């Protein structure tokens, strides 16, 4: 018996690709969103905060269910995407990415938001009085001072996407090489009574999760922020 079949590597590769794509997009979305939430004095701010954090408390299947309805070709949104951009999100990798972004959003936004909130207001203000734009202030003053928070957001989003199951199963299904990620594969192999392969997936995920958390805690211990 081939100890690590090709399908094993294919599934792990897909899992990492999904997590990496999701994390990258979340970084681009999370920084402005976290900054906005940290600095907003808006009446509607709690509404935005609640929406961002919803995936923390909702069962993933609930989220997956609504996403499935929204993405399906019969829904107005799904058919609009299909007819305008020729994009199908049900049972596709793109659909998994969109679902994962929503699902892991709080894991990126919350550390970044609290990082920004921990910075004294006068840092940004000093930069403005030195003639610097909001963009320069963000990239050269604020972000370098919340590096640890951004790193936490990156690692947590990546790890959380690796571990997702419910959302993927609802909108992605279990198509090898397309939407079958490691957590789904474990479930599938156990159902097929193939405990050896399920064990391989599971042990990879255990080791991977431990290493990631080890990295976070070591980095945070060595560089306890500059403030």
């Amino acid at each position, binding site marked *: 018996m081939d100890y690590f079949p090709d399908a094993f590597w294919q599934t792990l590769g897909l899992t990492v690709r999904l997590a990496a794509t999701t994390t990258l997009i979340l970084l681009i979305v999370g920084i402005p969103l976290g900054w906005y939430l940290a600095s907003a004095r808006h009446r509607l701010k709690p509404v935005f905060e609640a929406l961002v954090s919803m995936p923390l408390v909702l069962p993933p299947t609930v989220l997956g269910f609504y996403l499935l309805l929204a993405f399906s070709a019969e829904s107005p949104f799904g058919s609009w995407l299909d007819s305008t951009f020729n994009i199908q999100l049900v049972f596709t990798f793109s659909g998994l990415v969109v679902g994962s972004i929503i699902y892991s959003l709080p894991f990126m936004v919350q550390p970044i938001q609290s990082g920004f909130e921990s910075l*004294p207001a006068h840092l940004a*203000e*000093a*930069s*403005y*009085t*030195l*003639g610097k734009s909001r963009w320069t202030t963000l990239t*050269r003053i604020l972000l370098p*001072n919340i590096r640890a928070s951004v790193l936490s957001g990156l690692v947590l989003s990546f790890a959380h996407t690796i571990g997702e199951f419910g959302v993927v199963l609802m909108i992605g299904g279990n198509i090898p090489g397309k939407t079958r990620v490691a957590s789904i594969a474990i479930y599938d192999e156990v159902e097929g009574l193939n405990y050896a392969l399920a064990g391989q997936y599971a042990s990879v995920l255990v080791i991977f999760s431990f290493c990631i958390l080890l990295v976070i805690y070591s980095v945070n211990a060595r560089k306890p922020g500059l403030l």
Partner: protein
Amino acid sequence: MIGLHFRKKLQAASGVITLTVEQEIAPHQLIAITGPSGSGKTTLLRLLAGLSKPESGFLRFGEEVWLDTERKVFVPPQKRSIGMVFQEYALFPHLRVGANLRFALQKDGDTKIIQELIDIMELGQLVDRFPRQLSGGQQQRVALARALVRQPKLLLLDEPLSALDTDLRQRLQDYMLRVHHQYGLTTLLVTHDFSEISKMAEVVWRLEEGMITYAGPPANLERPRNWAETTLVGTVVRCQSLPGGVLLTVHLPSGQLIQIPYLGTVPPGPGEKVPVAIGGPGRVDLGIWG
């Protein structure tokens, strides 16, 4: 000439007050702003800097209109020729002193100004240090130098020396006076220290509950009962509870030992540093004026 007219509601300890200020400032003047805590001093500086917006108001700097709420004109801080020094210094913690100064350089700015300021403020030994490796006085000198890199016309100083002891304070006052004259600045300085006002300012504004209650030369400024002529930081040697109240024995930097009644609620213990306000002749008070 600077013309300003601001109205802004503020949340103060005593409730909501309305900051209402209408003044003119002659070019190259050094104005001290003083008054109790929560009277709107910092807000006034922030309004001049463009870090806060008033409910209604007008601000003209020379020929430029920086703010006109009626015509919806608002020039952001980036476009105002200002330098600001914050009470907490606000140095960028991830940048060395040199990089803190270079960050302030404008796109077409002349790098010579940085070396010039390093020389004036005597920062040569410190350029490779991070802010956390500097003492309070050194950080304040860097903050002042950084505010001047942009070569502003208006310098705003928000209690820049309040955390420093007397000797250091006097040296920094000299630095501030030097740059004020050398660069032909118009300077607004928020301070509680009466000796600082008399030494530095040509004009003083006293702000109380959001209103200017005095504007004129420092010599004519009436000193309120709890006004400090100057403040020293002393070390408590002994703290005695007597029938009439608490009596502190304080060791002053000059070596002198003095006994003063403590007027607050939680007396400091031996070894703690306390601000001591030296009032009129022979009158000594603990500083509790914010």
